[in-house]
């Protein structure tokens, strides 16, 4: 019993008034004889309910009027907006009416309620202005004698500028409710003129739950091509952030990249979430842990899921080959443009992946999967160079996809999983593979929580303070004061140190400052290939370790690089100590609330490795995977 839009159809509509002599009665109703009084029931007519039973709810006491009233009668729900208008012109000094909408009791009437209330209020205003409803009675029974002329006189008025149109178009309530009934049930909207200035306009909208609270570390994935909707009327923040919603960037990161206010970004994304344009996933990292849920069996059983997965996860590099081929042969200029405005065919379909692949700030794939990224480069070069042979894109079989999903498990990072199953994963885009699993609920992210020993102890012993952390912070504060004194004396040395520094290193530093994602990738690459990738000098390694760097601090980088070979925390330069202190304070606060690593890293804008190092300094901690 549902219309296409999912709105429950109206069972009946009636218009009831309080008749000065007969009391509350139904004047018109659609369908005819849907609701009856005692006489109809005695005649064994098939009515929805006995009107006499509920007439005190249809036209209630004046105190209860002028508000939305709905009540249950038998298996039906009547929603109405009883109106009470007082005035000496009326026979009983007041006029009461109600448009009642009857629904099945179990129906969701929410979409209708606002419209019904609005309709009631509008007719209240019309009645107050021009006695629109009360004078419809042929015998003018609603009026006390002396006002009769007034009622008749107003009918001939004309609206200025609308000379041709008679003021009253609406001939009867009967036709009005009939039309409302038909239109709402068939089209979920209606637009019925009453006079030149007013009309009954109703459009039903589904009532959606209020948006949920987002976290900075969550990653939105678009489910529709939003860039196609962008027009001038769009919210400026929305326009700004759209290019960065690519399934890789977290909410916080999007706001940074788009240079938009975080809270505004969050609101925008909440809106997108509200209208189901995005799905939330977690930050993709190779240090993540995933494990199957109880719904993993659905991959085998549910219709279409395995096929969807095959279509979705096909390795981006093979598709990138495909794309670059197409792009180079068709629109060579668009290959270089940002992907979001290259809607051509597959490029649009896989735009996220292109961005993900080509964006230097994306996660560690380039370092982690040299095997998969190099063909992309090669192919790009190849296609730019000219003709090339036919490609073959292998789509992994369902069974092998299922094997790969089931092989994920608690206690095993994605990196380990990848290394083990590299061969099977050749044609699979791992990020897409994981996202597919997470979104379909067949795997889940195992979050990692660092818990400080000192926190535990203080909680167990009901001590308020976290001694270790406080001590550390106090210690750093002291150190800061000391180094301030020193720095005043040692300005000369620093300038020399700048010259010592590796110029390129400093430059690189500048470009990546405030980029924690870069840090992540670096860090990860350090882990994976250890020293093999970077056999340069020690200084650079030190650069990696701190990614938050203000421009003023830059000068001290190289200096610190040298000094830092000593014990940590003792001889840091001033600005770093300040930052350090700030970070530690933040971290202590986050730890107090038992946040997981994703959250901490996002808040501190640091890669996990750095956070771990900070944690080390704060004392012992345990890692919990949940």
């Amino acid at each position, binding site marked *: 019993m549902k219309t296409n839009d999912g709105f429950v159809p109206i069972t009946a509509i009636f218009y009831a008034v309080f008749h000065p002599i007969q009391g509350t009665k139904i004047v018109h109703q659609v369908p005819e004889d849907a609701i009856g009084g005692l006489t109809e029931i005695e005649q064994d007519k098939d009515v929805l309910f006995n009107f006499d*039973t509920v007439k005190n709810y249809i036209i209630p006491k004046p105190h209860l009027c002028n*508000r939305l009233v709905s009540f249950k009668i038998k298996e039906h729900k009547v929603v109405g907006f009883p109106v009470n208008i007082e005035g000496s012109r009326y026979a009983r000094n007041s006029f009461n009416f109600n448009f009642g909408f009857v629904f099945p009791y179990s129906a969701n009437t929410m979409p209708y309620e606002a419209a019904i209330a609005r309709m009631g209020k509008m007719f209240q205003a019309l009645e107050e202005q021009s006695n629109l409803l009360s004078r419809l009675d042929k015998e003018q029974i609603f009026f006390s004698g002396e006002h009769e002329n007034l009622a008749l006189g107003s009918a001939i008025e004309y609206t200025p500028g609308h000379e041709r149109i008679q003021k009253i178009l609406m001939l009867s309530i009967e036709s009005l409710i009939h039309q409302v009934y038909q239109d709402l049930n068939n089209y979920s909207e209606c637009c019925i003129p009453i006079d030149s200035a007013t009309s009954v306009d109703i459009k039903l909208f589904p009532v959606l739950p209020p948006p949920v609270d987002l976290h900075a570390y969550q990653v939105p994935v678009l489910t*529709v*091509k939003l860039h196609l909707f962008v027009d001038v009327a769009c919210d400026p923040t929305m326009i700004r952030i759209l290019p960065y919603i690519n399934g890789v960037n977290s909410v916080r990161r999007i706001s940074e990249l788009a240079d938009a206010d975080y809270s505004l970004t969050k609101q925008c994304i909440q809106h997108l979430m509200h209208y189901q344009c995005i799905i939330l996933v977690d930050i993709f990292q190779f240090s993540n842990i995933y494990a199957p849920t109880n719904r*993993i069996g659905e991959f085998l059983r549910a219709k279409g899921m395995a096929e969807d997965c095959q279509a979705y996860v096909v390795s981006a590099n093979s598709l990138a080959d495909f794309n670059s081929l197409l792009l180079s042969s068709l629109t060579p200029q668009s290959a270089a443009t940002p992907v979001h405005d290259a809607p051509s065919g597959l490029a649009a379909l896989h735009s996220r992946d292109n961005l993900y692949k080509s964006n230097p700030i994306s996660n560690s794939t380039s370092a982690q999967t040299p095997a998969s990224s190099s063909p992309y480069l090669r192919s790009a070069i190849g296609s730019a160079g000219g003709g090339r042979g036919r490609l073959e894109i292998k789509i992994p079989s369902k*069974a092998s996809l299922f094997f790969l999903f089931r092989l994920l498990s608690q206690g095993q990072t994605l990196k380990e999983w990848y290394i083990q199953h590299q061969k099977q994963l050749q044609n699979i885009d791992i990020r897409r593979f994981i996202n597919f699993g997470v979104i379909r609920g067949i795997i889940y992210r195992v979050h990692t*929580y660092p*818990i400080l020993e000192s926190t535990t102890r203080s909680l167990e012993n009901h001590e308020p303070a976290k001694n270790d952390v406080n001590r550390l912070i106090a210690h750093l504060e002291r150190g800061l004061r000391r180094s301030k004194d020193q720095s005043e004396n040692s300005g000369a040395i620093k300038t020399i140190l700048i010259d010592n520094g590796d110029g390129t290193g400093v430059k690189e530093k500048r470009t990546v400052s405030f980029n924690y994602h870069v840090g992540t990738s670096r860090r990860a690459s350090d882990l994976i290939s250890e020293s093999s990738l970077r056999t340069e000098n020690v200084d650079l390694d030190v650069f990696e370790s701190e990614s938050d760097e203000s421009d003023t601090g830059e000068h001290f980088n190289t200096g610190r690089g040298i000094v830092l070979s000593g014990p940590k925390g003792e001889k840091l330069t001033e600005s770093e100590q300040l930052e350090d202190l700030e970070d530690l304070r933040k971290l202590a606060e986050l730890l107090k609330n038992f946040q997981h690593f994703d959250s901490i890293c996002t808040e501190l804008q640091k890669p996990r490795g750095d956070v771990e190092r900070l944690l080390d300094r704060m004392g012992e901690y345990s890692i919990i995977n949940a």
Partner: protein
Amino acid sequence: MSYNLPNPSLVGLLLAVSTHNGPQIVYHYPPELGNQKLLLLNPDEEAANDDDFDDEDYVEDDSKSMSSETSATNDVGAKFLDKSSDLAGVDADAGSTKLKKLNSATTEDFKSRKETDSSTKGQILGFEPEILAEMLSPPREMCNCRFDIMLESMVFLGLPIHAQPDGSWRPQKARSFRTAARSESVGHGVSAGGSVGHRGSVDDTIDEEPSEPKSQSALSMFNLVFVMNPPKIERSYRTDEMFYYVILKLMFILRYEQHKRNYMWEQVKLISHLKEEFAATPPEDRDYSLSSYLLSGLLLCKMMNHCFASLVASRVAHLNINNKLHSFQIPLKMEFHSLPEVSTPYVPGSYLSSTASFLGETGLVAIGETVRYSGSSLIDQVLGTDIADEQEDDLDEDEYLTSSDELLHLGLLLWDDPETIIKEIKAKSSSPIATFIRMIRPTESLLKVYSRLEENYEGRNDLNISSVREFALHLVHWRKARMIPPLNTRGIYIISPMAPIGSRFKRDIAKFNLHFPTIPSLPLFLKSLSTRSKKPRQFATIIPSKDHKDIYLLALAWLVRYGYATQLHTYIWLKVSRKIKMKVEEELEMELGKVLKRGSKSYQNNSEASVTENKIQTAVDNSSKQAGAASAETIEDEIDKLQRRLENAQNAPDIVMEDDSDTILVDPGRASNMERRWINQIIHKECELSPELTAVFYKLLKYMNGRNSLELLLLKENITRAELRKLLLSIESHVISVRHW
């Protein structure tokens, strides 16, 4: 917000009765209900109304100040403030609104005092009690069934109980109505409302009391109305919850009491009497409010207060109704079989386990939902029609053991000390349920508990297996226990993804330490559960020595109880490799002496189909979806590009399906002929199982569908661990296993 979180959204309770003096509100709780005004739907309008009504408020105040001397100063103050704000003029707009707010606050205060002083005149929710009483005393045709009236967003929910035409209260088949009686009562209502004060009508009742002792006819209807203000989106769900879990049960009990002992009428009379008495004592003599006065004396009022307080706090309400104890609750959703979506909130400490779905089938336990607002209504959920995912409905029930059998293989984990629970449920310490509770161990299945009961009480035991099941469900339903797969040191336990780290951790660290001072702290204990080895290990591996076994199991029970840990179960499927299929095919050929390519054909077709499907998908995807929304030129662009792409189609790479070499049997219990042959091939030719193992294999075959946990099968099918291990080892290469909760 989500259906997973409790949200009773209860604002207050009203008791409306209808006597031959007309309807009246006898009692309402909480007393603050008098101060609240009905929320208006539209905030703008509210603001507008505020201005309009200000004057009226003061008029009201005037009349009140005349009637009561004590508040005169207050009133004058309010007036003064009002005047001053007027004097301040337009430029001090912000100030004046502030003052207005102040004004309304003082008037509210004033009203509330007024209300407690003489509640007979106090408004309820901004209405005169007479009007509410009339609204809440529906005509007989609307009685004895669900009563649901909504004013703006405020829902008045109840089950009005009307006396039968013959004056009895016994439930009868709904009879045809009598208009005469109804119009009479309506007439009374009209006359009683407005001019005649509430107190007057009370007087009347009391006067008549001696003349009609125990008269049944004096009370014609009573309606305990639950006033609720749920969020719009949750309205129907929350009202359904309240109605089916509380109102329906409560009102039937009240009807029974009224029928048997005239309980409601006696109480109503007492309330009126006490009100009278209260009004009689001079105001300076009393240092208590009317509501507390009523509370001290009356069971019914106490019951209503208690009911309100418990329900608002989402606790179980143990209500004393005519000296009999009844319990009501809106069940908490603390058992989940699937992990809720990221943005779906849930009660901290919820337990995650596939076994929860067995519980859901009993209808006694509410199962958490994975999405914030599921489409299914509460009734569907209660009746269990919507619990299983639609996609999983394709299997018949006979595939599984019925849930009642299943439940007996689960264990029971008490949420508290056995003796505390026995005291709380007010069971006698020698009663069967008390004995049962004392016997419960989280490490033992109900069946085992039962057999121990039998041993201990040979013959004298009046418990049978179905009452064990009943008791267990009773304990689970009333939030005293949780059903879990029996704890076992050989089980693999992980930290539940729903573990309340972040929400409850602070409190629980201290609690854990208090309970188990001798073992590592909660974070360390959890750390040991989340090892960085490749796969989670058996619980036994983290127990340092044999002596620690018991305490570690207790700690584990604690973790499960607070939702920190859950057990990983093993689920298996049969996998048929290409080799097997080829062999079967060869055999078939030999048998039939002719070429039969059915098997191979079918999966070739399959892969071909998906190739084409894939191509279509990629082709469609880029052009469709929101193409309509795109501006005309982009469409043209796109068409252009499409054309060019088609021209270049010969350059496009081939999309090739990797061979689907393995087939996973989704439902071996209902294998087709070909599948049976494959299975036979596996067990007889490939693995050459011994006859014993073959028997075990066939016993387990129907469970190799990825839905039945091996851990539970061990308990259910009477197979030893050794046998199972042997079997799994020998068919290892033909089995896929997955571990999840």
